[in-house]
């Protein structure tokens, strides 16, 4: 099933969130936006979190490295990491081609429903990206 970019939520720090229901619990699938991947250019390394780690919203959970720079990844929601996309680190070239499907990084059990309300919808995120930095 292909994820629709326009129905995702976004953090100002460029992570995307797809809110799904698993066994009655809310699970956030997290990745990095196409815009951020394009800005980073030529990814060479990604440091992934470990399953079981409990994240707080805004906490650094990993890093992504391009030829020019290292960028931290921030947790868009609080909660326990349920699953990590282990194949991703070895296939960073595919991340650029398919950031919203193949590019998922981790699944987080949403601990606080209010976190989701603090995220941007697609239109608001696009607006942020089009503003000069």
């Amino acid at each position, binding site marked *: 099933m292909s994820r629709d970019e326009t129905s995702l939520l976004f953090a100002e720090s460029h992570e995307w969130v797809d809110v799904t229901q698993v066994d009655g619990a809310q699970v956030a699938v997290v990745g990095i936006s196409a815009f951020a991947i394009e800005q980073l*250019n030529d990814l060479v390394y990604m440091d992934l979190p470990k399953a079981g780690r409990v994240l707080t919203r805004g906490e650094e959970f990993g890093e992504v490295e391009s030829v020019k720079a290292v960028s931290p990844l921030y947790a868009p929601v609080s909660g326990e990491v349920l699953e990590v996309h282990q194949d991703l680190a070895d296939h960073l070239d595919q991340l650029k081609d398919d950031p919203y499907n193949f590019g998922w990084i981790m699944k987080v059990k949403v601990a606080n429903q209010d976190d989701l309300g603090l995220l941007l919808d697609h239109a608001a995120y696009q607006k942020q990206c089009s503003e000069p930095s």
Partner: protein
Amino acid sequence: MNSLLQTTPLDAWHRAAGARMVPFAGFEMPIYYRSIVAEHQACRQSGVLFDVSHMGRLRLEGDGAAELLDAVLTRRVTDLGLGRTRYSLVCNQEGGILDDVLVSHLQIPSGKQYYLLVVNASNRAKIVQWITPHLERFPFVTMTDRTELTAMIAVQGPSVLAACGRFFKFDANRLRYYHSVVTEHLGKPVIVSRTGYTGEDGLELIVRREDAVRVWENMLLAGRDAGFIAAGLGARDTLRTEAGMPLYGHELSESITPIEAGLKFACNLDGREFVGSEALRRVIANGPGRVRVGLVPNSKRVVREGAAVLDRVGNTIGEVTSGCPSPTLSHPIAMAYIDDPNRASGEVFVDLRGEKVPAEMTPLPFYQRSSST
């Protein structure tokens, strides 16, 4: 946009081509167009064009110009033959590096000779200021800053001579390595040098500002079948790092001497006195206090500028000055200064953002093309 930044004559071309522009040494410069790695590989495999118009271009002419340069450059200029180019350093009294430069001895068609000094963009004002007092002792010498009247284009890669050489009135295939000539491209005046900063063969062109776009597009067209593309400063940095070439502000600074930087070859001290020569003789006699090395970290992560180099027990023994992933070697590479020249080989550790990672010290360069002509 920062209005204090200058733009090069190729600025509109870069933007139309979709380049990502960044501030660099007071200029807005392309960091890449599509991909740093793709631009890097195009340079190693065929050819790329860099806009290096931000570099400073100073012209010195008149009776005594060679003697004046001889007094401030670490290499002799008075014996620099017509049509030759030399890599040299400008040092302060303490032997610290003010800049690394290329000096060329050129002749315009009317027969008049002059010297051209190509300096780093970030050091241009400083070097002009440094040379100006020397002009008093050489009343017939004039120095002209040609930077804003001209553009500079580096065309680099193994296919460059074959693809572009014949498009100059003086066929650049006849130009030997580290030689330069004042000639024409389709009636437009151009200085062609067989030099570069990538570890590949190639040419560096200086043209009039108004001719920049035309010459740039013609070189791209000449290399179209060979796969030439435009490349930005990102690829220029990874290419020079693989080639082990120092960059001012990273491996070179006013507190580092050429001897420490591994640039003794660019210091001609035999029977010469120039600014800093005494200090350099002292450094050679006493032995340098540190040494520049290559580093290959045993990690997928890139060790970057400023990272500490550590010994087995965690003492700091040096510092990383440049680091990047090597697209040619497919692993990270770095350059560093090691404080004890007797310990400049073998295994060390680097502080990789808090993690102690083993690294191998290696001789430079990391990459060398198969034949230097």
